[in-house]
């Protein structure tokens, strides 16, 4: 077990020694230990939690990662990998002090095989940069988190990230073939590879989604897909939110699997229209943005089925984007919702839960009731096609007691998701934020099995301690809940869904 004593401040001498040892591995410019510099790394996209590292290091190779991890083991210091720090569950925080390994200097595309449709990349590569690299040859990387202009493939692997188009194409795990991993004891191993099947247990499959607790990925083999021939985007407008929910199931019942089905409720539409004017009707109770992609042949026929399903569900207006400009405008409305909330509320907190799609009408009603009962407002904009809710609770951090009500409402929403047979996270992960909610959906026996699996990878517990499982002890500071926009949001680079 790690030594919790490291959570106590290191003595100046010891700190100097450790710094020298780290510099010997990654070079002096690759080590941060000055508290002012460390502050940048004290939280991720969920600013609710903060924890300060003793050192942040910037390795440039698997060997350096391995050497740093080896040192951490000898010194019994906890360590955690960090990508772009856009996570929304506190996953990359040094919850018990120690080392943060930033992978941002390992950001190369190492190999692209267009014939066999895969790429080998380093973990610090920004998600969108992969699609940029392979785009000119007609390929792309399918999982598209809204943070894709900033988040890294390493973070995506750890959190098994999703995005709007994962409805049809699957989430990160469905696109990962193999990983080179620095194990928590420093050993460098390959899990999986470039081919579809590997000998033995699917360790790649269990590593993806392990939230940085099974080791540090240093090379990633992902599938790349051919860009579709054609894309069609349809907007359906509803006077009742129940109708929009029912339309989601109706689309599926007609045997269609769109690339994306996103829902936007009235509060969000109004905020978006006030801010950007994207062409959503302000008086609509909800709108669905449905995207189809694939062959050009048959696209019209499929779009017609979508239109019909929405009409039958009671849509008052259904129209297809006439051209790429109108399509982009509609997506801008969907994606700029976060920025727009800023205009109607000083702060908000994003929830992430999943429910069976057929439960949407009931759950959305309940979400609104729960939030209202706490005297708060909520905007919903989410991946309706796969039942992945993102209620955004609006509040004012300056009003005493309001943050606590947000947190309480959030917990009730998570309970609700669990009660209807859903999950407490569809894409943001458990991290620090939801570890105490795990018992909502998992029994003690379920958690014990997960713990055993963790022991097989990370027996000392030094690798990213304090995450996923309900924890006893950490140095994390909680609150005030005040939402601070993430740097990439401030720059207008991404939206929070």
């Amino acid at each position, binding site marked *: 077990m790690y030594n919790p004593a490291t959570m106590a401040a290191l003595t100046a001498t010891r700190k100097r020694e450790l710094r020298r040892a780290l510099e010997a591995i990654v070079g002096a410019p690759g080590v941060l230990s000055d508290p002012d510099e460390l502050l940048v790394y004290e939280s991720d996209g969920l600013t609710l939690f903060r924890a300060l590292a003793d050192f942040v290091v910037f390795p440039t190779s698997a060997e350096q990662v391995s050497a740093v991890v080896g040192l951490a083991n000898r010194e019994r210091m906890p360590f955690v990998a960090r990508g772009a720090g856009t996570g929304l569950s506190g996953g990359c925080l040094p919850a018990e002090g120690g080392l943060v390994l930033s992978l941002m200097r390992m950001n190369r595309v190492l190999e692209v*095989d*267009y*014939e*066999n*449709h895969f790429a080998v990349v380093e973990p610090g590569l920004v998600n969108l940069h992969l699609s940029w690299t392979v785009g000119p040859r007609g390929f792309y990387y399918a999982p598209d988190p809204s943070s894709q202009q900033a988040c890294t493939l390493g973070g995506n692997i750890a959190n*098994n990230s999703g995005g709007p188009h994962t409805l049809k194409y699957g989430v990160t795990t*469905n696109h990962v073939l193999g990983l080179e991993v620095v194990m928590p004891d420093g050993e*460098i*191993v*390959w899990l999986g590879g*470039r*081919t*579809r099947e590997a*000998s*033995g247990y*699917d*360790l790649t*499959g*269990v590593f993806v*989604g*392990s939230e940085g607790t099974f080791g540090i990925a240093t090379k990633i083999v992902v599938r790349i897909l*051919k860009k579709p021939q054609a894309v069609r985007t349809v907007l359906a407008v509803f006077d009742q939110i129940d109708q929009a929910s029912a339309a989601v*199931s109706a689309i*599926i*019942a*007609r045997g*269609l699997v769109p690339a994306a089905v996103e829902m936007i409720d009235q509060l969000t539409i109004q905020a978006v229209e006030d801010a950007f004017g994207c062409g959503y009707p302000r008086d609509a109770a909800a709108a669905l943005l449905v995207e189809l992609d*694939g*062959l050009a*042949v*048959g696209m019209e026929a499929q779009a017609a089925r979508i239109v019909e399903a929405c009409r039958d569900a009671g849509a008052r207006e259904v129209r297809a984007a006439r051209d790429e400009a109108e399509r982009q405008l509609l997506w801008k409305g969907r994606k700029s919702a976060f920025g727009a909330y800023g205009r109607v509320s000083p702060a908000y907190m994003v929830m992430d839960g*999943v*429910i069976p*799609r*057929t439960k949407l009408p009931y759950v959305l009603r309940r979400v609104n009731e729960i939030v209202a009962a706490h005297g708060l407002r909520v905007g919903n904009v989410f*991946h309706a096609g*796969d*039942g992945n809710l993102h209620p955004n609770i609006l509040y004012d951090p300056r009003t005493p007691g309001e943050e606590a009500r947000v947190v309480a409402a959030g917990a009730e929403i998570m309970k609700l998701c669990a009660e209807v*047979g*859903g*999950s*407490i*996270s*569809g*894409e943001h992960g*458990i991290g620090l934020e939801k570890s105490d909610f*795990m018992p909502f*959906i*998992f*029994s003690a*026996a*379920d*958690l*014990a*099995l*997960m713990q055993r*699996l963790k022991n*097989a990878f990370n*027996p000392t517990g030094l690798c990213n301690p304090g995450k*996923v499982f309900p924890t006893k002890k950490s140095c994390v500071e909680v609150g005030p809940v005040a939402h601070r926009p993430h740097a990439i949001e401030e720059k207008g680079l991404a939206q929070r869904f």
Partner: protein
Amino acid sequence: MPDGLLDTLRATVGPANVLTGVDLSPYVVEGRTPDAAVFPGSTEEVAAVVTLAAGAETPLVPWGGGTAASVGVPAARAGIVLDLARLNRLLEHEPGDLTATVEAGLTMAALQAALRGRGQWLSLDPADGERATVGGVLAANASGPRRHLYGTARDLLIGVTVVTAEGVVVKGGGKVVKNVAGYDLPKLFIGAWGTLGVIVEATLKLRPVPDAERLVCVGFDRLKDAGAAVRAVMGSDLIPNAVELLDAAAAAALGVTAPGAALLVGFDGLAEQVEWQCAELGRLAGALGGREPRALPPETWPRLAAGAAGPGAVAVMTFSVLPAQAAELMEQGADAARARGLQTAWAAHAGVGVVRATLASEAGRLEPGPVAAALAEWRELARAGGGQATLERAPLAVKALVPVWDDPGAGGRIMQRVKRELDPKNILNPGRFVAGI
């Protein structure tokens, strides 16, 4: 088996649900007869049986349809067969959610029939659907031709209930199609060959049955040209649901006449999409020496899943290589066998680089030496290109000479640790899997 265990098992699941003696003939694997076969009727009974076996440190062999029972390293101790045939219910199917929850002993065919009645299907089409059970298919990570588009069990299993080696009922994943809460336990049990836990329930993602589907065959004079056509298809706008490459022997076994090789491609979707794609395939393949495409009857699909099966097959090896290397492996592998006087048949899910070969000797007579030498050379061919090979079926004399599983490398040690954590007494299919697991 320890004294008294049989009585306790009978008391647990009812005397009629414990087989012994001559009744065990269906469970004889590679000449070895188990001590008993037990048919629990519920998850609780599975847990009770596992607890009893664990207490007595008696090995357990979880059993579905028995279609892959002989895959793996021959067992050192026979142990007790845990047959899940009575756990065969479709527990939940909500079409609007495109998910279903089933018990592990349900056969694939029964599941597909029930789903099809409501316009949906599980997009997994392994061989022997009439006998293979959902639990067995998951444990063996079995798949079929449509994996080209729809992936394998890892892309479809969203929740799993297992009975651990200590008899505890544990759930992983959930019932929703998107879920990142906790570790991805479903992945752990797929392809684990029953060595980490007994799968008792599974929740799966479904798909709507497409309007239309067609399987077409393009004949080629040379395998090389068919391989080039595979690459052309992969680089095109086509969205096939299957891309199968068969050498002449495999094609003949399937009842398809092809001079040198056959490329079988499946399409689904709207009728007009299928139509357009078939025409486009004809154009692409024609330019590379392909004959006019012709449609094959739908009954061909399940036989494709079984792969090439030449007459008098004595061994089957499956490979995972880069898709672009499939045709070359097939040619070189056939040459290597021919040089030893052995006949082969090769078939590939070429678009995903999964190749399957059967090896036959004259009149089905077996000489382990040359057979083993050919298999070892095949494995080397696959490994040279970064791939791997599994000896899926072979007589014991051959298995004694050629390892069943490929070397998992440094990952093998992690696998051993996983096994020790989950099955500390080593009672679940001991010794059957990789790295001595």
